[in-house]
């Protein structure tokens, strides 16, 4: 936590634009919303069914995701929360087949807009693989990438190619999926910049000339370029300072509402999703600990892990208390613990927690928790109830 955004300090020019508030131009937004041409009538646009993902490494296999199930409706925002290494990024990357060379889907299915886009694989297939099936898969997913599913990466990452202009990188994405002229694509890029609140004159700059906040906004602009139906945001604000975080989040929220895009918001900071998401999934050691309606989960936390996450963050409105961090450290995913994956660090752990892994228990409408004592926690019989 608390990573200092160096770019703001070094890039003087950028500080000027940072202090201004960003107003979303609603008309522009509506224009973009129209671009989407969709004939999908279904209820859920994304469904993950018991997805398991593993990585092959030198010592064996890392069981990064051990069975998660969720779905997303049109325009819905879901927060995917957990500590580093819990598998949330892996889960997200699986959706549009962005796993690294040694990763593969060990089980489960992914459905997008009524079509199956991923299923169990026998072994990792590198993205450069020449095999026929690999090529076929690439062809299939490339049609969906960015046009239907786009991504916003962590700002701290080197997510944009340093040797090409930012505008070029956006135009490239547009031209890949839309049959329009270069000039038209460039005009759209201008509008995108306006939409996210970056001066048009910066458009032809290089990534290293952008400050952290600007880079993030540029990436958001790029993600919106083809009017996708689903955006996956991986820690979109982690690299920024708190003020910037706030601004960006607000912008994201507004954009998402205006354009009605389904969003998965990945973060380790539970407070971030509190304001933006309708659903939340709390992930630990490759499985969901708690999943469902965000209000219910926040008010009636039914899982010790979720509790722990909440307690790690200061509450402005609540009583003054000491911040507690969860003792211990995340488990070894090559040889995960028996039974409940959280039991070594759980203050409520009992014998049954060591022997059997709990199932996802429905504690309320649209509220699941994976804990033997989920109902007790929900009702408040055990520990603290809501907040």
């Amino acid at each position, binding site marked *: 936590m608390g990573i200092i955004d160096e770019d703001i300090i070094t890039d003087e020019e950028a500080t000027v634009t940072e202090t201004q508030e960003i107003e979303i131009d609603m008309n522009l937004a509506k224009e973009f919303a129209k671009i989407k041409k969709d004939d999908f009538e279904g209820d859920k646009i994304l469904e993950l069914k018991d997805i398991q993902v593993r990585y092959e490494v030198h010592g064996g296999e890392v069981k990064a995701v051990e069975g998660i199930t969720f779905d997303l409706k049109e325009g819905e925002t879901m927060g995917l929360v957990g500590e580093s290494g819990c598998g949330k990024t892996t889960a997200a990357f699986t959706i*549009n087949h*962005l796993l690294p060379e040694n990763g593969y889907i060990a089980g489960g299915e992914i459905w997008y807009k009524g079509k199956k886009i991923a299923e169990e694989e026998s072994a990792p297939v*590198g*993205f*450069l693989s*020449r095999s026929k099936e690999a090529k076929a898969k*690439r062809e299939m*997913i*490339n*049609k*969906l*990438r*960015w*046009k239907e599913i*786009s*991504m916003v*990466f962590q700002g701290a*990452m*080197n*997510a*944009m*190619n*340093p*040797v*090409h202009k930012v505008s070029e990188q956006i135009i*490239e*994405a547009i031209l*890949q*999926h839309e049959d329009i002229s270069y000039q038209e694509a460039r005009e759209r890029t201008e509008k995108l910049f306006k939409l996210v609140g970056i001066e048009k004159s910066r458009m032809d700059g*290089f990534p*290293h000339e952008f400050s952290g906040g600007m880079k993030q906004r540029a990436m958001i602009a790029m993600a919106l370029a083809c009017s996708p139906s689903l955006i996956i945001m991986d820690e979109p604000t982690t690299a920024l300072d708190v003020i910037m975080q706030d601004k960006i989040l607000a912008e994201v929220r507004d954009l998402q509402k205006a354009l009605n895009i389904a969003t998965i918001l990945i973060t380790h900071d539970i407070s971030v999703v509190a304001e933006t998401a309708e659903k939340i999934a709390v992930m630990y050691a490759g499985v969901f600990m708690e999943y469902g309606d965000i209000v219910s989960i926040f008010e009636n936390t039914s899982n010790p892990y979720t509790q722990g996450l909440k307690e790690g963050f200061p509450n402005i409105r609540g009583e003054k208390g000491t911040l507690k961090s969860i003792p211990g450290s995340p488990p070894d995913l090559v040889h995960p613990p028996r039974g409940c994956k959280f039991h070594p660090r759980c203050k409520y752990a009992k014998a049954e927690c060591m022997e059997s892994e709990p199932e996802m228990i429905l504690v309320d409408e649209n509220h699941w928790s994976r804990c033997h004592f989920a109902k007790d926690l929900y009702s408040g019989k055990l520990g603290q109830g809501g907040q």
Partner: protein
Amino acid sequence: MKLSKFIIGRTIQVFITLLIILTLLFLIFRLMPGDPTSHVIDPGMSPEARESLMELYGLDRPLYAQYGLYMRNMLTGRFGTSFRTQNPVFMDLRPRIMPTLLLFGTSMIIVYILGILLGMFMAWNRGSKLEMGGIVGSLTFRSMPYFWFGLLMLFAFAGELEWFPTGGMKTAGVDMPAHKEALDILYHMTLPLITMVIVGIGGIALLMRQSMLDTLGEDYIVTARAKGLPENKIMIHHAARNALLPIVTSIAISIAFIFAGGVITEIVFSWPGLGSLLITRTLAQDYPVVEGAFFIIAILVLVMNAVSDVFYAFLDPRVKL
């Protein structure tokens, strides 16, 4: 505007380095064992000639005065007189410069272009038999001494098959029109060029491959994939374009290796360039020519380094010109 500033700055750097090199040369030739004058004055000269030369070089004056004179002479192109041919050194050097530039320049361009393509190809086909073959092949040729491969080429293609001449740059004694002469030179240059390219390509290809593999692990490649871009666009436009940068940076070091190879290749094929001159005159103890040839070669290396720096600045927008 900024470009010219950069060029001026770079030129000054080159100049300073040249001065240092000249100083080193001076130290080497004057302070090394043996009679220092014998390095400058032909032992077989007449006393009067010796006198005048000693005055010219100030060999009877103290060391610092000699140094000053030396610097002045070298920087104005007065490299002295050859022991062998009795010509002013520069006259012996001049006709050799172009052949060296031609051979070295052409081979460097080809080596870099082909090497980069090969490296990219190897990285693209990661894990395949082609890549393995490429790695082993590159490593094998990288390990081969230039002269041995050159001799092999000579024996096979000039000796046995007689497809190419066994040396030299032009067919002797025959007058031909300009365009035919160009073809003749090309004909003579084929084998030495092939030698330099094949032995040199391995190193560049392996570097490029490694650079590509490093680049492919970068985050913007993930972004490019996520954007649904086709494979060749990712490879070339995104990966290779970035992988090039370390290669260009390493040109400075590769140049030394290629020049060394070039010198040897010139001797093997009797190519009338600065390299073969350096060697033959060194063995003949014709020191003025050796100094001059070395100096010119050093200038060439430095200029090429500077050019590659400018080129890098064009390639990488992060570098402020």
